[in-house]
């Protein structure tokens, strides 16, 4: 429910949203009250590449539609998923999302590492505009961070897989069309995919790489090539997201991150991992549906309050705290 973060309708909109859910049919509401809470896990459930034996769509794609969420943390910290943002020294409770190299760190060139550390130091004290996290300004989170943020939805159509994130959205083309011209740079890149058994393999080019991997500031440059694999369990409850970043202008070698994901429809709505509301209808069946997720207004709460609105409260401008 994106409205809880929008600045024009802050708290009262959230409360109205809760009421909206509460006003659904009593049967559905009761039924859903018994749903377990979505708990973060401190282990990484791995799915291996292989055959697809689950249901298929009419065009032959494995049917993996629905609402999903990452399971081990959030976007605060890439390499220590259950540590806080900006606090690299928290004792790790879950393994680093960086699975290659083995030390769990992004293999930055020295100058890039310094820059990342500088960002991490200033996340809560953004004295320059570049210290403000782009996501705090409603920018799309980019190919990988989108999967560490709120829950998200996968919809599938002949020739397409569509991801609807809390901030931004992606269309994966399965139609073998050529990539866009190289000089077009995009927050979420340009994606071409195909299925190999249980795995959706996606080639992401045209990255503007302006987003970061976490609030500790790990980043890529616009030269980044991203090779993604979405490896789905045949029971359709889990999948492993794996992305390999190749960018010789920033890293000393290609590196790979991994994010474990699970389906969330059977969990209680929590406004984060599961943002599905109960649909109103005449039948007794429990139908869940996502609410509008739009973040175009620039919200002021994040970025340490460094993003402010002008006096007329209609035209968001970036200003720095004195």
């Amino acid at each position, binding site marked *: 429910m994106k409205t809880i973060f929008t600045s024009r309708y802050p708290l009262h909109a959230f409360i109205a949203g809760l009421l909206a859910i509460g006003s659904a049919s009593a049967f559905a509401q009761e039924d859903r009250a018994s749903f377990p809470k979505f708990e973060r896990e401190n282990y990484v459930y791995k799915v291996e590449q292989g055959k697809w034996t689950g249901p298929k769509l009419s065009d032959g794609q494995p049917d993996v539609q629905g609402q999903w969420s990452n399971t081990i943390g959030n976007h605060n910290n890439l390499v220590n998923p259950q540590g806080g943002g900006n606090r690299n020294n928290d004792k790790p409770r879950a393994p680093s999302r960086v699975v290659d190299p083995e030390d769990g760190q992004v293999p930055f060139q020295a100058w890039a590492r310094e820059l990342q550390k500088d960002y991490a130091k200033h996340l809560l004290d953004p004295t320059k505009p*570049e210290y403000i996290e782009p996501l705090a300004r409603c920018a799309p989170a980019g190919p990988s961070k989108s999967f560490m943020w709120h829950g998200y939805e996968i919809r599938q159509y002949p020739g397409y897989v569509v991801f609807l994130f809390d901030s931004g959205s992606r269309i994966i083309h399965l139609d073998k069309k050529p990539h866009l011209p190289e000089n077009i740079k995009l927050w979420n890149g340009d994606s071409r995919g195909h299925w190999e058994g249980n795995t959706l393999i996606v080639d992401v080019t045209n990255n503007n790489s302006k987003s970061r991997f976490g609030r500790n500031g790990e980043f890529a440059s616009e030269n980044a090539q991203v090779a993604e694999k979405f490896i789905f369990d045949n029971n359709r409850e889990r999948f492993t997201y794996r992305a390999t970043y190749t960018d010789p202008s920033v890293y000393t070698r290609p590196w790979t991150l991994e994010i474990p994901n699970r389906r969330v429809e059977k969990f209680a709505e929590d406004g984060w991992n599961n943002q599905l509301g109960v649909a109103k209808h005449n039948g007794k069946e429990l139908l869940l549906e996502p609410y509008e997720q739009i973040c*175009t207004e620039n919200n002021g709460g994040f970025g340490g309050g460094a993003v402010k609105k002008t006096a007329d409260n209609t035209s968001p401008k970036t200003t720095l705290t004195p």
Partner: protein
Amino acid sequence: MRFLKARPLSSSSLLLITSLLISLTANAADKIPKLNGHPDLSGIWQTTSAADYDLEPHSLRADAPPSAGIVEGGVIPYLPKALAQKKKNFENRLMDDPRLKGWTLGVPRGIYYPEPFQIFQRDRDITVFHQFGHSVRTIHTNNTQHPEDPNDWWFGDSRGHWEKDTLVVDVKHFNDGTWLDRAGNFHSDALHVVERWKLLDANTIEYKATIEDEKVFSRPWNISVILHRHREPNFQLIEDYRYTLEYDKYYPYPAESAPAKSSSTAAN
């Protein structure tokens, strides 16, 4: 001058014309793609109209090409107070149009805004995916109803059903953050839109909408616009998150921080 004289058509001519008409209609109907028994609206669509500049008839002006408008009857029936607000909006349109901030265009403006949008269709819902803002609207077609006490949404809440071959969509629960066009035509959070989507042939959609808002208009009014399918080879939506333009120069890192010749510091 016999040939100028009006003559009744012979019954054989009538038959020919009738059968021609029937076969033309049948051909058009045959060509309309179907999905699960309903017309399939899937594809990338865009208006060629100048509707977004100004829904009402207008002469050429510096910020808009001339156009007869798309409002049935020509004029939007504003309540007096709202008309004053519209005039104010018009005066300040080059600054105040929410589209300039990259805000989601809303309904129906997103449909006739001059950027493509893609429709993805399933039995349970129809996804309208706009290039502008890459914003996504879901039209539920699974017999569900509007929530009773909802939020105000940018796109409102859309519930659709098929009436023969026309998709009829009821949209309400809007916020008041969007305009209807660049000329300052606007609405309140009481906006209620009923859309009618109909494929005229495989590559053309007739889009009609009835617009109602008791806080702003004296009566419901109608618009109509034609949407064309993009058929260029390899045409695709390209993300347009224009609200990020203001600050994207700050990311991902200040260019001056990178080594002048980054390749020289890359791994061997």
